[in-house]
């Protein structure tokens, strides 16, 4: 098992390196000029040339690439052009709201999605099942930014229960930080719940047809116990896979919600970096997202072994 984990971790290096190189090429190919943005509309050509020289943009592509690659190999992602800080520090300083938001979104997704999926499977081909499917479809179809604005209008503007936007870190607000994350969390969680409900329903339907469920019923076990202990537990493998990927998608995909709710997370960081061509941050964000996917994949694979003792890795 340990060897397996070590091997998977070693595989991280080439994957991240490939992502880094692609990120460098993409950011250098797209049009846009960070220096002109930085210096404002009416900067003179002399001011622009001086700043380009200071940032090394006057060097040809291959020289910049080699020096950048040298830094990357040493783990140095460079400094942000706009934020006056190293890229790693910029990303780390934005991690807290993104991670909390992803966790809350995921929790809301699980709390709504799994029971809904189980209910739909248990009440298969009834009105309840149909309603659950319609709800799940609606959840997937509603654009998250629209839901976000609607939730904000109702619960923040009209009812005043939550702040409209922004975020205060745990260090300042303690547990109060959650007030800023509930509406964005619901906006994210609704789509997750829809995905989870569909996955749970189909996994449960498969399991409920198995012989051991019939045996359990034949020996007179209560339906509740059959569902919770025998069926749901065995349906967990596909659900865990979906959970893993959706967690990765949430961590790397909170961009829209962070932008709508003005939450200073890694997604909002990446969006603003793209808009103002902060190349090092764009590259760092791409590497960060790749890292999330690789690590989450690994965690999902390892968790199989704990849920299903028959799965063993070598």
């Amino acid at each position, binding site marked *: 098992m340990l060897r397996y984990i070590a091997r998977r971790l070693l595989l991280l290096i080439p994957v991240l390196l490939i992502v880094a190189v692609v990120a460098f090429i993409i950011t250098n190919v797209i049009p846009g000029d960070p220096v002109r*943005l930085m210096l*404002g*509309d*009416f*900067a*003179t050509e002399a001011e622009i040339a001086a700043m380009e020289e200071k940032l090394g943009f006057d060097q040809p592509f291959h020289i910049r690439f080699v020096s950048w690659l040298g830094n990357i190999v040493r783990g140095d992602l460079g400094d942000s052009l706009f934020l006056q800080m190293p890229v790693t520090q910029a990303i780390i300083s934005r991690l807290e709201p993104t991670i909390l938001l992803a966790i809350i979104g995921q929790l809301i997704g699980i709390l709504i999605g799994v029971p809904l999926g189980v209910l739909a499977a248990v009440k298969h081909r009834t009105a309840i099942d149909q309603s659950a499917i319609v709800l799940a479809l609606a959840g997937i179809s509603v654009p998250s930014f629209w839901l976000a604005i609607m939730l904000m209008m109702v619960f923040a*503007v009209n009812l005043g229960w939550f702040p409209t936007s922004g975020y205060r870190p745990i260090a300042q607000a303690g547990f*109060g930080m959650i*007030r800023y994350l509930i509406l964005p969390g619901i906006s994210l969680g609704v789509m997750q719940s829809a995905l989870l409900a569909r996955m749970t329903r189909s996994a449960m339907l498969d399991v409920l047809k198995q012989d051991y469920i019939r045996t359990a019923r034949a020996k007179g076990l209560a339906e509740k116990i059959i569902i919770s202990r025998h069926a749901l537990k065995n349906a967990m493998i596909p659900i865990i896979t979906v959970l893993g990927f959706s967690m990765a998608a949430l961590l790397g995909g909170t961009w829209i919600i962070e932008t709508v709710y003005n939450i200073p997370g890694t997604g909002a960081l990446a969006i*603003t970096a793209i808009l103002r061509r902060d190349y090092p941050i764009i590259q760092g964000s791409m590497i960060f997202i790749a890292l999330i996917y690789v690590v989450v994949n690994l965690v999902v694979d390892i968790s199989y072994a704990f849920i299903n003792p028959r799965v063993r890795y070598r």
Partner: protein
Amino acid sequence: MMRFKYITSVILTAALVFTLLAVTACDSDSGTDANGSGDRYGGSLIVANALTPAHLDTDITTDSTIGQLMFHVYEGLFEIDENFMPVPHLAENYSLSDDGTTYTIQLREDVLFHDGTGMTSDDVIASFERWLAVNGAGNNIEPYFVSIEANGDYEVVISLSEPYAPFLSFLSSVVANQKFTVKPKTLIEQFGGDIMTEHIGTGPFELVDFVPDQYVEMKRFEDYSPHPGEPFGYSGEKIAYVDELIFRIVPEQAMRVAGLQTGEYHFADFAPRDQITQFENDADIQTFIVSPYRQSFIIVNMGHAPFDDKLTRQAMRYALDMEELAFSMVGDEDFWFLNPSLFPPGHIWHVPEGDGGRYNSPDPDRAREMLEQSGYDGTPIIILNSREDDIESRGALAIQSQLEQVGFTVDVQLYDRATVVEQRSQVDGWHLHLSQFFSPDPDPQVYGAWMGTNKWIGNWDDDESAEMDEIFTRMLSETDYNARHAIVQEWHEYFYETVPYVKLFDFRQLRLARVSLQGYENFAFHTFFNVWLDE
């Protein structure tokens, strides 16, 4: 077993209810209460700021967002008054030599920096030398600069090689961060020409914290000694009534408005103009229409055909109906007005009839005729603009429609801003670009950097651009107001004759505040001294 489950569920339910209560009870921004007893001092003023500053060094950028925030922290030797005239601020007084080349400036002796040290000539000299080297306006003055010397602790003497009429206007200009502000010599020695990441000014507020893309936090500078003059904009008496001034960066318009409605913010800029009636009917909200604010222009690329030909540019002007454009670009008539002058009414450099009747004179037949005479071959005219700015992106489409009616072929290309600023810096790949200039420019000379031979992005390089340069050269050295005003009139006439840009209209901005915000002065830049919270 059943009893155990019952107890567990009761505990869980209680925990859930407690959590919800705790969550809704946690106040987000407690501490915004001001003294309600008639005392103006106290409270935290929270501003929802649409634009985000890349850094806070006012010398090294032309981005006005930075000045808008940092002119609470930094002050000029001179600031403009309500007539856009420069008046002494950190300076006590000044005199100009008879030959118009030497400024002797006495400094106020009661000015303290935020680190507690007193402002002296040495600080002014160090700041001025940095400003000359790194600031755009400083760069313009630099060729005329001879020396700056201290005459004791509280007097500096600045010598120029020849008269430079807009010198004091540039020193006090709020446009594009041209203003010369005074910083401690020690700070300048620490950063040199690099972007400053520490800030020590003389203003009524001192900087506490800056987290890029999130907030800029300031607090009252307790030892500030206000200028005794009549307050206007950045000049005169400035009192920091609020304990804290926090600018939260909120790029989404809907979020700024929603936050203002719920009371999270006291002030929001760039509010939706089309919702003004709704805001006016809200008892908790005050509306401010900012005027003068900006002017809309079409920047013409004269570096290649067809607009290297004056006739084509004139044909374009006759094709455009400014009123129709203003309606489609801005909307409500409260937010725009037609003005042929490049300065708003009331400004000392306003020229009401400089256009010779050529401004807003739509005449499609004449436009068609001139276009035919010019030999325009149907080459598609590329209008290059950013999709982020609603006025400009709507304008690109409205202008396309009007130009096509007289025979131009037009291709509108909308990109994100980063792409646009790069593309428009090239000679090829575009013909027209919509832009906005700040209306309260202190001096017409500002346009010298934008209009003339190869200035800014116009790629204008012919006999007429040389003639335009010559007008600006004369304007630069003419120190008599009336004689200079005549040159400004001549410049307007030549502008309408040669059409390097097309002036469209002047427009206004909508700002919102909670009714608790008192004393707010609706200046083109939002300023938060002399305001207090009545909560």
